[in-house]
C-alpha cells in the first residue's frame, strides 16, 4: 500500500515537519515498506477483543490537588531560545 506524495506532504504538515523533496521521496518509500509490514495485523479477527491502551489502565493514581513548591520562572526560562519580561518570546502567531 504505497503512500502517495500528497499523503506524505499531508502527514509532514500535520506533524509540523519541513521536509526537502529528497526527504519526502525517501520517507515515502520507507514508510510504504513499513506500512506493508504492519498491514499483516489486518488478517486477525479482533471484532471481540477489547483494546489495550495501557497495561494497568483504569488504575489511575492521582495525587491530592494541593499546591506544592515548584520551579521558579527564572529556572524555567533559563533554556528559552528567546525571552522577554519573564515570558517565552515567539514570532507572531497571526500574520
Amino acid at each position, binding site marked *: 500500500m504505497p503512500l502517495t506524495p500528497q499523503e506524505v506532504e499531508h*502527514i509532514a504538515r500535520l506533524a509540523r515537519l519541513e521536509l526537502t523533496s529528497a526527504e519526502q521521496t525517501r520517507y515515502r518509500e520507507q514508510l510504504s515498506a513499513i506500512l506493508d509490514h504492519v498491514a499483516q495485523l489486518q488478517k*486477525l479477527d*479482533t471484532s471481540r*477483543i477489547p483494546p489495550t*491502551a495501557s497495561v494497568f489502565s483504569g488504575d489511575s493514581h492521582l495525587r491530592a490537588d494541593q499546591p506544592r513548591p515548584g520551579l521558579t520562572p527564572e529556572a524555567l526560562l533559563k533554556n528559552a531560545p528567546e525571552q522577554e519580561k519573564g515570558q517565552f518570546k515567539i514570532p507572531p502567531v497571526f500574520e
Partner: protein
Amino acid sequence: MSGVKFGLKRDTCHLTQLMPSLTSLSLTESQTLLQRGEISSRELVTACLEHVSALDGQLHAFLYVAAEQALAQAEAADKKLSELRGTGLPISQSTMPLLGIPMAIKDVLTVEGMPCTCGSKILEGYVPPFTATVVQKLQAAGVIVIGKTNTDEFAMGSSTENSAYGVTHNPWDVARVPGGSSGGSAAAVVAGLVPAALGTDTGGSVRQPASFCGVTGIKPTYGRSSRYGLVAYGSSLDCVGAFGHSAADVAAVFSAYNGRDPLDATTQDVPAANITLGTEAVSSLKGIRIGVPKEYFIAGIQPEVEGKIRAAIQKMEELGAEIRQVSLPHTEYALPVYYLIAPAEASANLARFDGVRYGPRVSGDSMWDVFYKTRGEKFGDEVTRRIMLGTYALSAGYYDAFYGQAQKVRTLIKRDFEQVFHEVDAVACPVAPTTAFKIGAHGDDPLAMYLEDVFTLPANLAGVPGLAFPVGFDAAGLPVGMQLMGRHFDEAMLFRVAHAYQQATDWHKQKPTL
C-alpha cells in the same frame, strides 16, 4: 573476592597502579571494600574518571562527564562512610546502601545541572532544572553520578547509530554496535568505566544492549518505577532499567530506584521491591518452573545464539529447575503492533519540541514557520520517520485500521503471557536473534533494524519484567544474551534464577580487552 587488598599504604601508593583492579570491581565487590575501608569512594571515582579519559575516545559511551562534581561528592561520601563505619551498621543495610558508588545515567533522564540532549540536536544545550525521581532516589542511596551516556536519538533505535552525536562502539569489537538504544550505558559498564548505569527500555533498549555487550540488564514491570524526569517516548511502554556486571549488582541498583512516585501517576501502588541475593555457592532452582517458548526459536536465528541459550537452559535444569515447552502464539505480531503503538505515542510526546521553551530555535517569519523549520532541521531521520508513521496511524481515516487494530492485538499478546504464567514461573529465550552487528550493517533500511527487536518487544507490550544476562560467546568472541521474562512485579524471580545461574557459571565475569 580473591583476597586482593587495595590501598595498603594509602599515603605512598600510586593510584595508577590500582586503576585496572578498581575499574574491574563489581558493584557488590566495591560495596564490600568501601565497607571495610580498604578503598575510598574518591579512589573509586578517580579510577572511573581516569578510565573514561583513557578509553572513551575509542568507545564514545559518554556524552557528558561531570568530573569535578563527582570528585567533590566522593569526598563527601568518604566522610559519611567513615561515620557509618563508626556505627557498626553494615552500609548495605543502612539508608545509603550505595554510598560512594559511581554510576552513569542514560542521557534521556534528567540530572539537574547536567546537559540532557536525548542524543538529539533539538535539545542541544538544554540543561534541565530538575532531577528525575529515579536519579534522586539513587543519589539519596549514596550514588555519585559521573556523567550521561550516549543513546539513539530519543531512545529510538537498536544500535546507538541514531545518536546525533555519533555512534558508541562495542568494547568487544569496536567495529560493531553496542546495541541500543541504551548502548552508551551498556558499553560503559562492560568496559569498566562505571560499575553500573541506568538505561531505559521501551522495546528492548536495556535488554538488547545488555546482550550485545555481555552485561546484566533489567527492564522492570511497567509502572514499577517513576518516569518523572524521563523524556517520554512511548508512554504506555517506557520503563527505567539498569545495567551491572551481575544479577546481584543490578538487583542492588533496582532496589534503590524502584517504587511508587506521586509525580508519576502510572507508577503502581505496590510495595517497593528490595531484593538482596545471597553469596551462597550455588543456589538451587528446585521447584522453579521455566518455560521455553517455541516462537522464540525461529528460522533466521544465529545458530550459535540458539546453541548457547539451549545450553544455559540445560544448566538451569541441572540446578534443579523444571523445564517446560510453552507457547506464546501471538509473538509474530509484536513487531507490527509495537511499530504502530510506539510511533503513535512518540508523535504526541515529541510535539513539545518546537523551539519555544528549550533547545535551539531555527528562526522563521511566523510561529508556524519556526515549528516547521526547527523540527524539520533538528530531528534526525529515525525520529522524523517515527513521528510521521505515528501521525499517519492516528490520522483521520486510518486510526481504526492501524492504531485501533494494534491496540486490540496488544490485548492478545498480553493474554498469551497471562496464560503462560499459569503454567511456569519464568520464560527463558534469546534477547536477540544475533550477536552484535557491524556498524552500518543495516544502512538505510529501517525495517531491517526493527527486526532486531523481535524478541524484546513482547515484554513491553505485555508490561512484564525482563532480565538479560550473558550465557556464552559466539565464534567471533561476541557475547550471547539470555532473556528471562516473568509475572508482573515478580522481578525477584528473574533475579533469583539469573543469580543461581551466575553462581554456577562465569560468563558474566568475562571482560573485553581494550
